[in-house]
C-alpha cells in the first residue's frame, strides 16, 4: 500500500535510521518532547480553566491568552518536531499502533476545537472578556481539557505498546 511504502521509505532515511540505531538519540529527543509537551499542556490548561471560569477571573481573558499562547505555540513546535523525529525512526510501528492513532485523532480534534473557538467562540469576547465566559466558551475550554488529558494518556500508552 502507498502509505506503508512511504513510511518504510521515511524510516530508512539516514536520520531516522541513526535515531533508531543510536542508544542516546531517542531518549534525548523524547526528553525534549516531554519537556515541551508539559509546557503545552500546562499553559493550555491555564487558558481552559479561565474559559471555564474557575481561575484568573479578575483578569481579562484576552490578556491571559495573549500572555500564555505564544509560549504554548513555541513549546508546541518543539514537541511536534521532536514527535516527528521519534515517529520517523519507527514509522511503520507507530502507524499500526492503536494508542498512536488515538493520540493523533485527539490532536486533530483539539485543533478543530481551537479553530472553532477562534472563529465563533471569541465573537462576543468584548462582552465577557472581564466576566464569566458564556457556555460556548466553557464548552471549548472543557473540551480542550478533556482532549489534552486524552492526548497525554494516549501518548504515555504508546510507550507501553510499542
Amino acid at each position, binding site marked *: 500500500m502507498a502509505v506503508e511504502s512511504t513510511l518504510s521509505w521515511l524510516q530508512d532515511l539516514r536520520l531516522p535510521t541513526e535515531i533508531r540505531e543510536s542508544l542516546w538519540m531517542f*531518549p534525548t529527543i*523524547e*526528553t525534549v518532547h*516531554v*519537556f515541551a*509537551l*508539559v*509546557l*503545552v*499542556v*500546562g*499553559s493550555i*490548561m*491555564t487558558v481552559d480553566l479561565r474559559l471555564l471560569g474557575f481561575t*484568573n477571573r479578575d*483578569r481579562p481573558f484576552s*490578556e*491571559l491568552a*495573549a*500572555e500564555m499562547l505564544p*509560549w504554548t505555540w513555541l513549546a508546541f513546535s518543539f514537541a511536534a518536531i521532536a514527535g516527528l523525529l521519534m515517529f520517523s525512526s519507527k514509522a511503520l510501528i507507530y502507524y499500526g499502533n492503536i494508542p498512536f492513532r488515538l493520540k493523533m485523532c485527539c490532536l486533530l480534534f483539539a485543533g478543530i476545537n481551537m479553530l472553532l473557538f477562534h472563529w465563533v467562540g471569541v465573537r462576543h469576547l468584548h462582552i465577557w472578556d472581564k466576566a464569566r465566559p458564556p457556555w460556548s466558551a466553557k464548552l471549548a475550554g472543557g473540551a480542550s481539557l478533556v482532549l489534552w*488529558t486524552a492526548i*497525554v*494518556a494516549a501518548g*504515555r*500508552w504508546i*510507550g*507501553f505498546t510499542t
Partner: protein
Amino acid sequence: MSVAFQSANWFVPLVQTVHIIAIGILLTAVYVLSFRLVGLTQRGQTLAALAVRSTPWVWAALCVLLLTGVLLTITEPARELLNWAFRVKMLLVAALAIILMLLQLSLRRDPQYWSSSPARRRSARALGILCIVAGASIVTAGRWIAYV
C-alpha cells in the same frame, strides 16, 4: 501491593498520565514566575500578585506529584530507588520546592522585596534562572530514569 499494581497493566500508564499533567501545571506556574523574575515578561500583573495566585496550584501539583510518585515507586521500588537519575531528580525537586517557598514567603511579607535594590534584582534574576534550569533538569532526569 507492588505485585497488585504491576499485574494491572493500565495502572502505571494511568498514574504516569496524572503525574505528567501535574508536572505541566507545576512547571507552567514555575516558568510564568521565573520568566517574570528574569525579566523576559513584564506584562499584566505584579510579581507578588503572580506568586500569590500560583501558590495554591504549585503546592497542590506538588502533592499530586508526591502521591503519584510514591505509587510508581511502590510498583517498581528497584527501578526507582537504585537509580541515580531518580536520586538526582529528588534532590532537584527538593531544591526547587525550597526556592519556591522562599520566593512565596518573601513576596508575601513584602511585595516589593525583589525589586527594592539592585542587589536583590540581581538575586531575583539568579533565582529565576535557577528555577528554569531546575525545571528542565527535573523533567530530563525523570525521563532518563527509564534508560539508565
